[in-house]
Each structure stands twice: as C-alpha cells, then as structure tokens.
C-alpha cells in the first residue's frame, strides 16, 4: 500500500511532465495539422539551457542565497529560448511548405529533429551533463512514504502551467483566436486574425512548456543528454494521440495515463519494459480508437 501511494505520486510527477510535452504536439497539430517531430528537441534544449544557468548560479553561490530567483530565472530563460527557437524553426522549416502536401512538412520536421539533436551534441558534447546535485535534497516524510521537495515543486509547477495554459486557450481573446485559426484560417483572416502570428504563438507556447519539462526532468533525474528528447518525445506524442490529437484536455489526461502506466508497469510488471508500455498504448489506441479518448465526440476542448 505504501509503495502503491509512492508509485502513484511518482506516476503523477512523470505523467505531468509528459502532459507538458504532449501539449506542444497537440496544439501544433490542432492549428496546422502537423506532427512536429522536432518537438522533443525543444524539451532537450530546455533541459540544457536549464543546466547551464542553474550551474552558473550555483557557481556564483546565488543558489544558496536566492534559490527562488535562480529557479525562476532559469525556467524563464529556458522557456523563452525554446519559444524563440520554435518560432525560428517554424518560419524556416515549416512555413515555406505550408501549401505543399503534408508529407513535405513532416519530413522537414524529421530533418529539423536530427539537425537540432546533432547541434546539441556538437555544442554540448556526447556525455551526460549533470545538474547541480545539491538542489532539493530531502523531502516530506509521512511514515514510510517520502515525497521529495523536488517532486512537490515539479507537481506544483506543472499544475500551475497546465492551469495557465487552459486559461489562456479557453478564456482569453488570443486563445479564442488560436482556436478560430485552428478551425478556419480564411475566416480568421476575414475577422483580422493573422494566422502567421497565431501559428508562431502556438509553437512558442508548446516549446516553452516542453522546455519547462526539460528542466524538470534534468532536476528529477540529475542530468541531461543531447538525445534525451527522443524517448520522452515519442511517449508524449503517444499521450497526445491517446487523448485525441488536437485536444488540450486530452493531451493532459493522456500524459498522466502514460506516466502512470509507465511507473506502475515498471513497478508491478517489469522495470526492463518501462519504455514499452507507452508504445503498446499507442498501438492499441491507433487500432481501436484512433480519435483517442477525448476525440471528436467530445469536441469542446479541441484547440
């Protein structure tokens, strides 16, 4: 039972991270019907920008004196960097292909993914880069289960980001414009909504959330690696498909489910197969219900 609760908490932590990444896939798909295969690289880049700044702050000793400032700054810088990176990628690699067959942009996305991943390897090296290890030691003790401070931070921050995103997409005018662009770009233009700006914004938000997830993973597992975007990328993609691609609530739910299944599968079935569960789910969804759990019948939370 104690181990069950512990696993549940671990599952929520991991699931929240997948949810953050999955949103980028689902939002971009919702707005321009592209599976952005380069999305995992924004996650990796975020992890690297995070480790660079957190190490820098730690070196200066600020991490001791101003931990909240250092964390906030590192998250903000990583998210901004990845947002601009994604805007650039879209302008260079996807926008010129918007009128072509969908396969063209898909292949371009694969190319961008390889390019960015290799760029990280060339500039940051092939080995793991360690996060400052003294961050967030310890946790809350409840008898036999422990919730690490770091886990609390990750879950709270993830929750805050998910709520903020929902408010943005479903309660603000710019969110309405984003949903309108997803639904009818010509009509959007006829009411003065510039789809280029909205598409840029969509990429920026998706990449920003992925960058935040990248730092969280770096903090959680203690290090980052240039190819770290690959597996979480396809798992989060599976989560987006499971939730119903294009559906925001679906991506959040899908992320949580994939995270849970992975943790419980590893705990109760086999740790060796932990990476397999997401793909079993992906294949199952594609086979039995390709529209996903929040698919087209519950259309309220599609972008």
């Amino acid at each position: 039972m104690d181990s069950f609760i512990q696993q549940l908490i671990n599952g929520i932590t991991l699931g929240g991270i997948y949810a953050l990444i999955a949103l980028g896939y689902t939002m971009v798909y919702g707005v321009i019907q592209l599976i952005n295969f380069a999305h995992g690289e924004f996650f990796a880049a975020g992890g690297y920008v995070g480790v660079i700044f957190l190490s820098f702050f730690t070196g200066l000793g600020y991490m001791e004196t101003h931990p909240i400032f250092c964390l906030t700054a590192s998250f903000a810088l990583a998210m901004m960097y990845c947002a601009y990176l994604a805007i650039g990628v879209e302008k260079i690699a996807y926008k010129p292909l918007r009128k072509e067959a969908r396969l063209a942009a898909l292949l371009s996305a694969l190319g961008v993914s390889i390019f960015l991943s290799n760029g990280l390897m060339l500039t940051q090296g092939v080995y793991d880069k360690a996060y400052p290890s003294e961050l967030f030691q310890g946790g809350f003790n409840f008898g036999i289960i422990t919730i690490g401070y770091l886990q609390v931070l990750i879950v709270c921050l993830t929750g805050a980001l998910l709520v903020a995103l929902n408010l943005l997409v479903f309660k603000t005018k710019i969110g309405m414009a984003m949903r309108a662009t997803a639904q009818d770009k010509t009509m959007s233009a006829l009411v003065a909504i510039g789809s280029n700006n909205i598409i840029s914004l969509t990429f920026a938000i998706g990449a920003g959330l992925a960058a935040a997830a990248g730092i969280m993973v770096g903090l959680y597992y203690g290090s980052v690696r240039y190819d770290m975007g690959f597996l979480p990328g396809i798992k989060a993609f599976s989560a987006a498909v499971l939730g119903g691609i294009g559906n925001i609530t679906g991506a959040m739910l899908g992320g949580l489910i994939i995270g849970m299944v992975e943790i419980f599968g590893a705990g109760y079935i086999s740790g060796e197969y932990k990476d397999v569960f997401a793909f079993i789910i992906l294949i199952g969804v594609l086979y039995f219900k390709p529209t996903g759990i929040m698919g087209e019948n519950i259309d309220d939370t599609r972008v």
Partner: protein
Amino acid sequence: MSAQPILELKNVHSGYGSIKALRDVSLKIYPGEVVAIIGANGAGKSTTLMTICGIVPLEKGDVFYNGVSVKNIAPEKLPPLGLCQVPEGRRIFPRLTVEENLILGAFYRNDKPEIQRDIEHVYSLFPVLGERNRQKGGTLSGGEQQMLAIGRALMTKPKVLLLDEPSLGLAPIIIHQIFDIIADINKNQGTTILLVEQNANLALQAATRGYVLETGQITLEDKASSLLHNPEIRKAYLGE
C-alpha cells in the same frame, strides 16, 4: 452620388492557378450604396469578393478602397480599415460559442466597453443570438448562423460590408428578416453594401444598382429597378 467610389475594381483578373475565374472585372461602389452582383452558379461572384479581400490572389488589375490600392495589403489588415466580408456558407467558428464568435469579430479592437455595447446591439438586432449566447456556433440552425455571421461582421465596424448569398438555404420568412436588417444597417449606420446573390429578384429589390456577372465577366450594369424590369434579365435570372 459622391465623386470618389469607396470601393473600386479596375480590370481585375484572378483565379485559381490555371482556372481563370475573373476576367477584366471592373466595378465601382459609392459610399452609402447597396450594390448587387447577380450571376449563375460558377459565374465568379464569390471569387470577386474573395479577391477584394485578398484571399484569392489578384493576377492583373487593381482594387481600390477609399482611393487607395489594397492589392498588397494582407487580408487580416482589411477589417481594421472598414472592409469586411460575410462569406458564402457563413463560416461560423463551429466550436466557439455565439458570444466568442462575436468577440472575435472585434479581434483587432481594444475598446472593451464599446465592444460590450456592440455585442448588446447585435443581440438587439437578433434576439435569438442573445438567448443562445453560450451555445456552440456549429449547433445553430442555418438562419441563426447567418444572423451570427452578420453580427460578427458588424463587430468589425465595417464601412463596406460584402455579403455572399445571405439568403442561401433559408426559409422565406428568415430571408425577409435578414434583408430587413441589411437594409437597416445600410440606412441607419450608413454602411455601404455589396451584395452577391443568385436570388436575383431579392437582390435587385434590396439594391440601388446591380451588376450581372457571367462566366467571370461583367456583362451588364444598371440601376437595380431597371435590371429588374429588363426582359433579358427576367428571362435569364428570374425564371420567365
């Protein structure tokens, strides 16, 4: 009639790649007018409106709004200038609510209290929209969608309103209601209206002047009342 047209097409050619949908179309619309374009299926009526709005690319010729060429202006920059279209098929954002659709009509505006007032004004023109303000646009009936499309366009504060077949698929009583509102918008708000219709009778009764479009070319231009009594027109478009 004032000297300068508020909207003018000069020798416009446009189309879809190899399909030349408009050939040498010239139109002049003066402030305060209601002008109708009538023509059969595929004549190029919708293409004319989409070319004015920059959605279908202009191949030759030019479009002037208030005397200024708009051919190099992006489509989304036109509503803030006062040029707005209610497209064929209404194109309501189906997964946005009625109210959200209206708010997006005012996307470029920041005058919040005034936007709220304008929403109330739309609800007073079309009370059914007020009753259904939280309903998803896609679940409205055809007539309600047409009302919402016109309401959404009014939210852009148009000086020139382009209407593409507002009567399409609607019951006579609803058509009547909608054309009353169109006349009201023209009279009371001074909005210039360019009306595209297959229903020539209806359009020519609502309009002051009319153009006849046949396979991408303007073949006739006259006062609406004259067109209505023109035997050729009665034969070709009014089923006589």
